Structures are given as structure tokens and as C-alpha cells.
């Protein structure tokens, strides 16, 4: 090799080698609401928090093995106690040592009744105590013998020094500028969230230096930006645009495994919607095939469809789905009219009237859903309009959705809301439909209440056998398809797109970024 050529090669290599701070940018549907893992509400929250925090134990998305970045080994210290030995050299993002004290602090925060988090409440029954034996040894006590106790320890670890007490409240600085131990440190602003590699600890060595989460734009903008190289990834690609990206040689489509289904919740505080016949009529007036085709681009009968219609609160692949309940795929105008007449509505001209007044429906939709199913809100509005209902449509931003809609405070604002629920392996839907009360019905959007439904949900809770649990939910499906607190729409598969420079990017079901340490950028 000549000296001249060698110098040329060396310079080129030097430039490449100097490029150490790669900033991987991606779109997610929204900014995270809270970065405090106790207050994760949305899937965006879960995904972002997976970067900032370590869960004590997590499932490997490849082989489903329970693993930990923090715990070196564990042993049972009695039938209901487990002793955890932490790895050495663990550090928080601020350089403090992560110790057994933090593990026990987290558990005590979860157990503290003044910690108002729903996530904490879910975990609360799993523990009775935590003791620090040594700096790196903690003993956790459970209320009963669990089959695989470490599977109960999939909560994010919090830094004791960042809090004044174990009573952790939602709206503190920690929720925007968290101190975690996860693979990335960072914070969120009003327009993006940033992540910076946390390599000062023994347990993380992410290969990507920086990441930036940007709020999803119009799907066309997202597609063009990723194809042009301006962005590296899109967490959820709207279905109509998937073929275009799939055929690009610059981008790789990847499945994001998530059990999600879409719905229209109906407000029974509206006297008209309190009538079952009206709800059933609306069910017959929604043409799901047409909606699916116009907003998602999927026609009836399409093979490998990402979108499958449903008739109840489960996806069709779920064992709880009652296959005996058919989907109402298209409009049945005559049936609907008959039901509406029976309910006391009257059609004058092209419009429906109730108690002498023209019916007007206020329809809201979670704003971010428009990026997955463009124009869905307008299409539903149009269908109801054609059927003779006046309507007002609203896009609901993430904050209002969390603060008002989910918490049952939107009954005076909307008659119908369009949303989506996502599930991990636990497909428990009790808190969506049970009568709202202390720790019950916590996601009951319009405070729906039906004693027969409550009884079925209680049967599910009380079931000892899997078949009894399954039968309870099969009955629930049947009941809800008749009572219709929701009009059930469809399940929609989620696909991500990442530029081919992003390598080894395994996407974990539900949590997404669990394996971020292995992700790398390579422009080879």
C-alpha cells in the first residue's frame, strides 16, 4: 500500500472513529406523561421508563427467561422470603451507588398507602416487608408462597436519596427529571425527551450514545423523514403507510408485540344512551368494514391483515374471546331504526329526535390514534351523520385523556369517546367495567355500572381453576356484547420501522426497549 493511500485511509478511519456521539432519533405517538415509573399511565410512559430505569427482574424478549441487570443471584430464605445479592459497582445516573437500601426503599414506597399510584397498588399485595441485610443484600418477604417469586419483582427500582419519604406523589420534579439506573439517563421537555447512555455503572454499556424521542407528526411527514434519514425510527407506523416502508431498502419493519383493541365508549349518563336499545342501534349503524377500509386501508378478506374486527373486550387470539358472539361488520339500518323507535326516538326527515329535541352526539377521540387510523373520528362522525345523528367531534389530547377521560370525569363533556387499550400477558379487564369504587373500576371511562357485570367480574376474581376464569370472561364477552357499554371495533397490530443502520434492535413485547444495551448504530 502506498504512503499516500495509507494516509487517505487513516484520515477516513480517523473521522469515522471520532464520530462517537451518535444520536438516534425516533418518533413515538406522544411525549411521556410522567417519567416516574410508579405513575406510568400510557404505553409511551412504559416505553420511555424502560430506558431510564431498571426493573428488578424482567423477561428476556427472546427466550422469556427471567433475568436481572441488578441482581447477581438470589436464594430463598424461607418459604416466603427471598434474599437478593446485588451486582457490584451499580450506580445511579447521578453517580450514587445503587444498594439494597434502594431496593427496600422502593418496596416500602410501593407498600406505603400514601403513594397514590395505581401501579403501586397493583404490587402492594405482593409484599409484606423488605430488610437490608448488607449494603448489597436485601431480603424481601411475601405474604404467601409464590411459585416463581422473582416474577413478582418486575417493578422499576427507585433511588432512595431522591425522595423525602416513602410516600411518593406524582407531580414532582422526578417525573420530568428522573434519576434512574437504567441504560439511559435524561429528561423530558415540552417537545421531546432525551436519553443519554449511562455507562458509569457496571451493569449497562449501551452502544448507542444518545437517543431523542420526538412526538409523532403527520404520518406522511414521519415516513418521508425516516426514508430520508432525518429520523431513525417510528414506534408505530400507520397501516396505510406500511407497504411503502416495507418496500424501502433503507428501512426494516419490525413487529411490536402488544395486545391492543380499539373501542367507542358510550356515556350512559346521557339519558338516551342509557337505553340499551339505543346502544344496540348504534352498534348496528357503525359499518366497521367501511371504517377499517377507509382509515386503515384494510379490506374485508385481505390476507395477513393487521386489523381484525372484534365483538367484545378481547382480541380474537385471546382464550377469553367468545367465538360464539359474531362481529357486526356492516350497517344494518332497518334493525337500528327498529331499535331506536322502540327506545322512543323519532325520525323526522333525515334526523333523529329524542323527547322532541334533535339528537346531537359529542364524540371525542384520543388524539394520538389519528396517526394510526387517520380520519377515524371524522369517518365515525360521518357514518352517524348519515344515519341521522347530528354530532360534534373533538380530538382529546393526552393530558386530558389521562386526567379526565380515564378517571371518569369526562361524562359531562362527551357522549362517546374513541380509544384503545393495550395489555401485556395479564388481560384483566375488570377495572374497565366494574362499578367504580375504592380500587375498583379505576379505568371505567363513563362510570358504567351493572350489577350483573360486576357479578361476572367477581366470578373471574374468585375463580380457582383456569377453566372457571375462562368461562367467566366468555360470559363477560357475551354480556357486554349485549349491554354495550362500548362499541367494540378491532384489534390492530403494531409495526415499528427502523432504519437499517440500527442493528441488533430486538423490540421487547410491551416494554419495547428492554434490550437497548444491545442496539447499535452501524453505517456499514
Amino acid at each position: 500500500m502506498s504512503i499516500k493511500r495509507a494516509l487517505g485511509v487513516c484520515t477516513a478511519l480517523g473521522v469515522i472513529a471520532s464520530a462517537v456521539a451518535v444520536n438516534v432519533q425516533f418518533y413515538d405517538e406522544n411525549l411521556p406523561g410522567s417519567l416516574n415509573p410508579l405513575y406510568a399511565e400510557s404505553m409511551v410512559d412504559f416505553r420511555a421508563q424502560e430506558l431510564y430505569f431498571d426493573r428488578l427482574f424482567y423477561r428476556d424478549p427472546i427466550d422469556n427467561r427471567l433475568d436481572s441487570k441488578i441482581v447477581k443471584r438470589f436464594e430463598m430464605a424461607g418459604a416466603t422470603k427471598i434474599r437478593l445479592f446485588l451486582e457490584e459497582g451499580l450506580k445511579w445516573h447521578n453517580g450514587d451507588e445503587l444498594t439494597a437500601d434502594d431496593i427496600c426503599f422502593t418496596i416500602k414506597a410501593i407498600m406505603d398507602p400514601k403513594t397514590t399510584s395505581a401501579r403501586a397498588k397493583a404490587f402492594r399485595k405482593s409484599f409484606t416487608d423488605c430488610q437490608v441485610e448488607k449494603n448489597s443484600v436485601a431480603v424481601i418477604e411475601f405474604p404467601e408462597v409464590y411459585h416463581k417469586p422473582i416474577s413478582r419483582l418486575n417493578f422499576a427500582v427507585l433511588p432512595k436519596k431522591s425522595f423525602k419519604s416513602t410516600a411518593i406523589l406524582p407531580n414532582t420534579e422526578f417525573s420530568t427529571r428522573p434519576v434512574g439506573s437504567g441504560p439511559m439517563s435524561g429528561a423530558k421537555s415540552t417537545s421531546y425527551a432525551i436519553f443519554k447512555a449511562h455507562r458509569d455503572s457496571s451493569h449497562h454499556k449501551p452502544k448507542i450514545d444518545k437517543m431523542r424521542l420526538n412526538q409523532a407528526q403527520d404520518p406522511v411527514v414521519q415516513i418521508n423523514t425516516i426514508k430520508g434519514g432525518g429520523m431513525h425510527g417510528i414506534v408505530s407506523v400507520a397501516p396505510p403507510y406500511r407497504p411503502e416502508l416495507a418496500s424501502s431498502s433503507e428501512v426494516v419493519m419490525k413487529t411490536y408485540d402488544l395486545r391492543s383493541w380499539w373501542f367507542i365508549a358510550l356515556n350512559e349518563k346521557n339519558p338516551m344512551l342509557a337505553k340499551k336499545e339505543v346502544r344496540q342501534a348504534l352498534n348496528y349503524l357503525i359499518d366497521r368494514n367501511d371504517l377499517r377500509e377507509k382509515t386503515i386501508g384494510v379490506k374485508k378478506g385481505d390476507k395477513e391483515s393487521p386489523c381484525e374486527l372484534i365483538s367484545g373486550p378481547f382480541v380474537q387470539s385471546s382464550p377469553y374471546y367468545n367465538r360464539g358472539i359474531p362481529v357486526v361488520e356492516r350497517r344494518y339500518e332497518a334493525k337500528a331504526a327498529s331499535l331506536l323507535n322502540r327506545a322512543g326516538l323519532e325520525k323526522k326527515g333525515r334526523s333523529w329526535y329524542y323527547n322532541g329535541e334533535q339528537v346531537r352526539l359529542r364524540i371525542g377521540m384520543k388524539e394520538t390514534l389519528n396517526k394510526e387510523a387517520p380520519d377515524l373520528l371524522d369517518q365515525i362522525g360521518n357514518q352517524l351523520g348519515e344515519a341521522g345523528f347530528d354530532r360534534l367531534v373533538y380530538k382529546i389530547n393526552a393530558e386530558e385523556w389521562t386526567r379526565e377521560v380515564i378517571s371518569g370525569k369526562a361524562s359531562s363533556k362527551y357522549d362517546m369517546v374513541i380509544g384503545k387499550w393495550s395489555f401485556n400477558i395479564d388481560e384483566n379487564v375488570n377495572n374497565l367495567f366494574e362499578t367504580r369504587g375504592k380500587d375498583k373500576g379505576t379505568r371505567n371511562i363513563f362510570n358504567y355500572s351493572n350489577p350483573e357485570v360486576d357479578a361476572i367480574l367477581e366470578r373471574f376474581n374468585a375463580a380457582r381453576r383456569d377453566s372457571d376464569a375462562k368461562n367467566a370472561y366468555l360470559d363477560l364477552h357475551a354480556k357486554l356484547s349485549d349491554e354495550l357499554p362500548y362499541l367494540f371495533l378491532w384489534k390492530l397490530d403494531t409495526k415499528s420501522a427502523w432504519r437499517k443502520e440500527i442493528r441488533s434492535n430486538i423490540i421487547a413485547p410491551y416494554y419495547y426497549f428492554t434490550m437497548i444495551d444491545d442496539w447499535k448504530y452501524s453505517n456499514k
Partner: protein
Amino acid sequence: MDGVVFFGVQYQCTIMNIIKQSLLICVLSVVFGCGSSEEAAKEEKSSSKVEAEKGSSFWMTRLAPPEKLNPFVQDVGWQSYYNRNFQDSIRGAKEITLARFHLEHSALYRQSLLMYAHATKNLYTQYKSDDDPIQSQYFLAMSHIFLGEFKQGKTLLDGLGEEPVLNESISQWKTWLKTDKKAAPALNGFFFSTEGAGINNPPSWNEETYAFSLPSGSFYEPSEGTGLWLLAQWHEEQARTILKDVSYGEEVVGQWLSPWRLPFEASFSSSPTKKVLSLADDWFLFGFYLDGTDLAFSAAIPSDARGALKEFSQKSTLAREIQKCVQDEKVNPECLVDGGMALEESVRKENKEQTKDIPIEQLNAELLYETFPSFARYSLLRMGAIFALHNDQHRDSGILQLMVREASGPLRDPVFLTFFSAWEAGNNSTLRAQDLVHELSSEFNPLQTARVPLDFLHIRLGRNAVPSGASH
């Protein structure tokens, strides 16, 4: 922030850093790099030459010219197969093509039974409950047997008391377990019937489950997995019947089914031949063996993965690509991804070269320049996954399997997806397996039987998890 932006990537650098690192790399490359780059270039050139010559034997390139492909395009069986209408493909196919389709069905039902066995075993061992009905012992016993765990199966069957509904089934299995197991079990019943079935008409599937009354008033409703074994055998028999007068008939059946055999078959199945069979294109079209060498390699992997790799790395392109990616006796999945893309590109180039003088309107450009090359890429990923699994690289196999799962259209192979679902069930991972079984069951109705224990496992895992419920 200081830096330079290239295509959305922000680089932080200082001039001094560039100079310092350049000098270091300069020294290193003079000492170590420059000399070897020429040798690497020579090796790459000769490897490419070999690739180019071998490439002409791949079905994706051999069938690129319209006159070679047209007979298949016009065949009803192949049209159905390409359009993923697998039951219609059996109805419409004949001769060798039909034999292949039957073997694919046989493979699929074997893997669905493997999924059933894994899910059942995990449900009643790792996740057993005091409330599991006594009859669950029979299903657990059967699963142990299919997994080759004969002693455990026998112990459970011997421990079962009188179960009138199950007695006949138990008796048949016990009879077989008493033999030397050098012959496949001769079974009948188990909800399976071939009445009305024929060579182009698979048996109707009985989705019935058992129903054992429980003290609570409800029922325990497990499904009978043995029917899947009988169905897999039936499809295999159809293939053998079609191939009975073909010289390589027994050999191709042995090779084809080898990667998909159930563990208990090791007791009575003979090892497949390692001969490279001279096979017609019906065996390869829209499949994942580039040519006969890959089929032979694939068949040899389950009994001795490393031995097979050593033996076939000079003959089979896929074996050679895998060999290139082996370090310290482990195959590197990342390297295989790159290898797959290179293979895809080489097939694309070859097809463009072969068809350059044919007017574009006479070609199916997407098929020849996109779909066919993609088959080459996925062939390598699949073979890599199977090799890794038998090379004690469980997790690496999973990484590759997940990539293959992303295939779509004609590349989306139900046999491999069922293989993946079985692997998932073995890992107590139910979500992806359920979604795939649901996707495939409209074409392969018997999968509804295989999913029953998977569903119960899913319910048990979900109810034992810390409640997470719905998120928005």
C-alpha cells in the same frame, strides 16, 4: 451542541480528536491492516466467483426465465400455494408437487403437536396447581411421551386410576410403551378419522374436546393431542404413496421431515440419508432450500449440528454461509443477517442478468427481483435458526426465529411459524404463539386442538402475574 450532521446523525468531534485518532489508526493499520487487506480482497474475489457459479443452481435463479417458471404459474396447485390457500393447494396439486405439500402439512402438524406437548408439560409441571384435575395426568403423560420422556409418561399412566373416557387411549399408549419402541405406535381413535378423506382431500377435523365434570359444576375441557400425530402420519403416508415408484421416494421423505420430527420419533425413525438427491424443481419452488445440498444439510443437523456443518460446508451454500459466521463454535446471528442480505443481492443480480434481454412487460419483475431474492435471505436465516437450536444456542436461535417471523406474503411459511410457536410454548411465552396459531388456524383447522393447552397456560401465567391490566 458542537458537531456535524450526516443524514440526521449528529457527530460530536473536535479537530484535535480527529488528528489524534487518525494517527493512532494510521499506525495500527500500517502495522496490521494494510498487508492483510489485499489477501482479504483476493479471498473475497474467489469466494464471489464460487458464489456466482453455485448461484446458477439455486431454484430462484434457475426458474427466473419465463419458460422455466410458466408451467408452475399455470398450475392450480401452485397458484393456491403462492396465494397462501394451503388447503386448496392440496386439492389442486398432483404428483410430486402434491407429495411435497403433504410433507409440509405433516411437518406442520408435528410442530403443532410439539407446541401442544410443551404447553401441556409446562402447565402441569412448572405451573401446576393443586386444583388440576386428576385427568390432567393423562395429558401430561402423553406430552412426556411425545417429548421422548418415556419413563415419566409411563409412571403417570400407571398411576392413573379408572377413567372410563380415557381408558382406551391409555391402554393403547401403555401397550406401545411396553414395546422396544423401535416401531411407530399403531394408534386409532383419539377423535381422528380418515372417513371420506383422499389423496387430495385431507380428513375432516373433529374439534371436540373432552369434558370432565368438576366439583364446582363447570368442566375441564382438554383437547386430545394424539390426533395431531395421526394427522401428521396420514399426510406422510399420502406422500409415500405418491412417491412409491420414485427411486428417491423414501430418501426425500426422510430428509424433508428430519428437522421437524418430534423428539419421541428418535426411538423409531431411521436417520435420513446424507446423499444429495437430484430433485425436480417442484421440491424447491417457493421453498427454503436453495438446492438439494441444503435439504441434505438441513436433514443432518438434528442428529449432529457441528458434524453436519463440517460435512456440508463445501457442498451447501447455506452451510458455507453459516460456517463463515461461526466463531468459537458458535454461529453469530448478526453475521447471518449480513450474509442473508448479501445472498439476496447476489440472487437479484443474477436474475437481472438472466432476464436483461427480455422485455419487462413479459416478466413479473417483483417476483424475480424482489420475492425470489428474499427467499434466499430467509433460507439462510431459517437454516441458521435450526442450526443454532441444535448447536446449543437456544437464545441465538430465537433471535433468528424472530427475524423469520417478520416475513410476509409467499415468504410467510406456516411450517416455520408453527415451529416458532412450539419453541415459544417451550419457553412459557404464549402471546406470540397464540397470535400465530390464530393467524394460521383458518387454513389449518387442527391447530385449534393444539392451542387448547397453550390457552390454559396463558390464562394461568396471566392470573399469576402481578396485575397490570389495561394501559392506554
